[in-house]
């Protein structure tokens, strides 16, 4: 599947690592719910590392949509929450 690391780009990820990515994703989500910043950082760092090391980078001019999007690993817990909020952190283009 195609995974986007926000702020870095897209990767094509082999099927055999997708389940590991999903596990880490659950840990990251649990960390957000528990307001556990170190745990969130650790889970996100591992997700990024997994995608970078097992994935194949898509060229910049590829227009494929991603199947999964991983948030930036260097955001604080507070930033991550704001980003996931309905209001969002991404500004409107107008």
């Amino acid at each position, binding site marked *: 599947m195609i995974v986007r690391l926000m702020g870095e780009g897209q990767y094509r990820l082999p099927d055999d690592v997708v389940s590991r990515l999903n596990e880490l994703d659950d840990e990251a989500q649990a960390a957000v719910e528990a307001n556990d910043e170190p745990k969130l950082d650790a889970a996100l760092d591992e997700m990024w590392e997994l995608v970078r090391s097992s994935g194949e980078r898509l060229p910049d*001019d590829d*227009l494929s949509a991603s199947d999964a*999007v991983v948030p930036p690993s260097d*955001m604080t817990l507070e930033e991550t929450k704001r980003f996931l909020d309905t209001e969002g*952190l991404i500004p409107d*283009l107008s």
Partner: protein
Amino acid sequence: MGLMSRTSNVVRAWISKLLDRAEDPSVTLDYSYERQRESLQKVKKGIADVVTAKKRLELQTQKLEVELPKLDEQARQALSAGREDLARAALERKAFAQQQLQGLDQQIEGLEQQQEKLAASEKRLAAKVEAFRTQKETIKAQYSAAEAQVRIGEAATGIGEEMADTGLAIERARDKTEQMQARAAAVDELVESGTLEDYTSTGTELDRELAQISATRQVDDELARLKGELESGGAQKELEAERRK
């Protein structure tokens, strides 16, 4: 729901908000392309803003670096005049200036990282915008209306993701830049209100006191010289008076 799904939802919601504005599918391609070009302009402006903020901090660094040897010299002068209190004040200001310099180095480094991230975003987005432009013409020329609409949707979503990604990078860079500007402004304000002595301007209290010392010395020297002249003059007169007798 995991963090990735929530993130995808945020991105997809942003894209549909963007594309909903073009209700007629036939204008979606051109409309999307227009927004893409705006997105590119925004990231360019974001880079320029970061560079401006960085320059301001670099200028503050230069000023402080000029100030350090001056403060050393002032401390030496004060000490040679027997004013340990003033020497201490000068060295305290030097320590403060050095602390500021360290902070500035870190901030400049932080802004450099933001600049690099934005430059990488711009490069990726530019490559996708160019690919979209080519594909747009192909889709218009080669596909039936129904087929074209599917392909338009795919390409618009693919590039919309990159635009959302760039938008987030710009917003985060702006946050960081604003924090640093606010901090720099707060230091300026403290300096102006006199809470901190302005280490970058001349004519501070320390300068005035040192000038006072050297003025006092000059007066003392001149007094001594005049006294000496008077005394030797007095002695001369006594001699002359003696001779007349």
